[in-house]
C-alpha cells in the first residue's frame, strides 16, 4: 500500500510517497534508496500524500539520513500532522531537516 514516484534531476533524487510507510512497505523504500543513493548528492522525500509512518519506516529514514549527511543533504517535505507528531515524539525532528 505504498506508491513511490521518483524524479531524478542532476544529483537530486525526489521520492514522492503515497500511502503507509510501515513494516510491510518500508523495504520498498529501502530498495529505492539503496539503488540510487550512491550516485546522488541530495535526497528529497515528499510526504504530501503519506498517511502514516511506523518505526520500521523511521528506521529507513534514519539510515538514509546517516548516509546522506556524509555526501550531501536529505530533507523531508510536506509532512502532515500525524507524521509531524511522530517525528516530534521520537525526536526525529532533531536530526531530520523537515520543511
Amino acid at each position, binding site marked *: 500500500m505504498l506508491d513511490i514516484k521518483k524524479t531524478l534531476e542532476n544529483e537530486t533524487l525526489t521520492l514522492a510517497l503515497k500511502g503507509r510507510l*510501515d*513494516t510491510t512497505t518500508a523495504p520498498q523504500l529501502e530498495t529505492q534508496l539503496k539503488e540510487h543513493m550512491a550516485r546522488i548528492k541530495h535526497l528529497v522525500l515528499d510526504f504530501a500524500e503519506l498517511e*502514516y509512518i*511506523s*518505526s*520500521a519506516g*523511521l*528506521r529507513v529514514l*534514519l*539510515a538514509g539520513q*546517516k548516509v546522506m549527511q556524509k555526501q550531501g543533504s536529505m530533507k523531508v517535505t510536506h509532512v502532515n500532522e*500525524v507524521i509531524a507528531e511522530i517525528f*516530534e*515524539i*521520537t*525526536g*526525529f525532528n*532533531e*536530526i531530520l531537516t523537515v520543511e
Partner: protein
Amino acid sequence: MQKEQRRNSLILQVAVLFTISVLLTGFLTYFSQSVLTDASVKKQTEGLASEIADEVKLAVTEYPAYEWLLRYWYEHSDELDIEYDTDYGSGTRTEEKCRLLAGHYPGMQFKYADTQELLAMPEADQKLYAEITYSWLITRVNQIKRAYHVDFLFCVLTEDSYETQFFLFSGADPGSVRGTSYEEIYPLGVRVTVSASQQEEMRNAQQNSAHLADAGSYVDYYAFLDMIDDHAVLIGMTYDLSGLMANIHAQTISRTSYAVAHQVFLSLICLVLTSVFVLHPLKKVQNSIRLYKETKNSETVIENLAKIRPHNEIGQLSEDVMSLTKEIDDYLNRIQTITAEEERISTELSLATRIQAAMLPHIFPPFPGRPEFDIYATMEPARKVGGDFYDFFLVDDDHLCMVMADVSGKGVPAALFMMVSKIILQSCAMLGKSAAEILTKTNEAICSNNQEEMFVTVWVGILEISTGTLTAANAGHEYPVLKKPDGTFELIKDRHGLVIGGMEGTRYREYQLQMEPGAKLFLYTDGVAEATDAQNQLFGTDRMIEALRRAEDGTPEEILQSVDHAVKEFVGDAPQFDDLTMLCIHYIGKNREEGRNCGERADH
C-alpha cells in the same frame, strides 16, 4: 464403482457404433446390389430380345418376296391350307406341294423366288408357294423359340390403329396344340383385341423400332418388322423372368450377408484389439493411480507401470503418471521437511516467548512488602515474540526505576534487540545513574555496534518512593499520562530526545514530576495509540485517555484492562499489527499507614 461402469460403457459405445455401421453396410450393399442387378437384368433382357427379334426378322426377310408373302398370308388367311409344326422327311403335305410346284417350274429356286416371278404364276401356284413358305417359316420360328426359351414368340399385323392384332405366325414347342383356347398356340388369322397399354407399347415399338415393357416378372418385347399398307407388322415376345429374378435375389441376399459378416468380423477384431491394447493398459494405469492414492508409494506404481509401456499415447500417459508420482513424492518429502522445520521453529519461538516473558517482571504484586505503590504491567506481542518491553525494579530501597520501550520492527530481530537494550538499560540504572545518564550511556553502547540501523524508543523514570519525586527522560517514546490525585488523566508533553540507536553522541535531558499520594502514571507503547481498525482508523491518544478516565478510580490492573478492552473493541476483527504494552503505577505514599510501613521497612 462409477469408474467401472464408465469403462464398460466405453466398449459398449464402440460396440453400438460398430452395430450401426454393420446395419448401414448391410442396407447399402443390398440396395446397391438390387439396383445394379435390376439394371443389368433389364439390359440383358433387352439385348437378348433384340437378338431373337433379329433372328426372326432374318428368317422372314430371307425370302426376297417377303412383303408379297406377308400381304398374301394376311389377305388369304381363310383360304390357305397350312401344315403347322411339321416333322419333315416323313411324307408331309408340304413335301408333296414342293414336288408339285417343282414339276410346274423345273430349275426354279423356290426360296429365292422374287415378287416378279411369283406374280407371273397362276393363282393356284401362288397359293401353293404361300403355303410352302409359311410351313418353312413356322418350323424356323419354332426352332428359334426353343433355342432361346422364349415363352411366347409371334408376329402380328396391327389393324384399326393398333386396337386389333392379326396373328401372322406364332412359334410353338413340340407337342403344343394349335387353336384359340387357353394354353393353345394361335394359328394364322386369329384376331385379338388388345389393351390400351399394349397398344401404347406397339406404337412405341413402331416409332423406335423396338420396345421393352417391364411388367414385374414378365417382360413384353415388340420389334418393328415392316409396314403393309398402313398396318405395322411387329415381332412380339414374352419372357417369364421370375426364375431369373429369384436367382438374382438370392445372389443379392448372399452378397449382402457376406458383406455384413465381413463387417461383423472386422468389428469384433476391432473390439478385441481396443480391449487388449487400449482398455486393458488403461485399466492398469488406473489401478496404479488408485494404488498410489492409497499407499503414496511411487516405487510400486513405477514398477507396475514400467511393465505396460506400449509405444503410443497410453505409454505416454503411463510415463506421465510415473513422473507425476515421482514429483508428488518429492513434493511430499519437501513438505515434510518444511513442516518439521516449521515445527522446530515454532517450538523454538514458543520457548523464546517464554524466555522473553520471563525476562520481564511478571509476578504481581511484585513487591508485596511495599504498600507505598501499586504497579501493574502487561505485554502482548503481535507475533510470538515482540520488540516492546516494560521493566521496573528497585535501584535501591528508596528508588524504583520504570522503563517503557519499543524497538523498531517486530518479531525475532526486534526481540533480540529488545533483550540487549533491556539489559544495558538495567545495568546502567543499577549503577545509580540518573535517567538522562542512563539513556545517554545506553545510546552510546547501542550505537557502537548497530549495523542493522535498529533503534529503540525508551521512556525511563526513577521514582523516589519516599518523596514521590519522579525524574524521567524520554528517548523518542510516547508521552506519559499522569492523573493527579484531585484531577484526571492528562498527557504530559514531556521533553523528547532522539530514539536510542539513532545517532551517536546524542545527549538526553531529564525532567522532574511530583507524584502526590494518589497520583497515577500510565505508560504505553505506540501499539496502543496506533491500533488500527478495519477502516484503517487509528485508535489514537484521545480514545486511550477516555478509556483511562472511565477506570480512573480503579487499581492499575483494572485501568490496564479498561484500555485493553477499549482497544480490542475498536480493532474488532482487524488483525493486531503491533505489540500492545502498558504499565500503570499508583503512588500511594507512606503517609497513610506510616507506622506499619516503617516497621516493615526496618526489616529490610
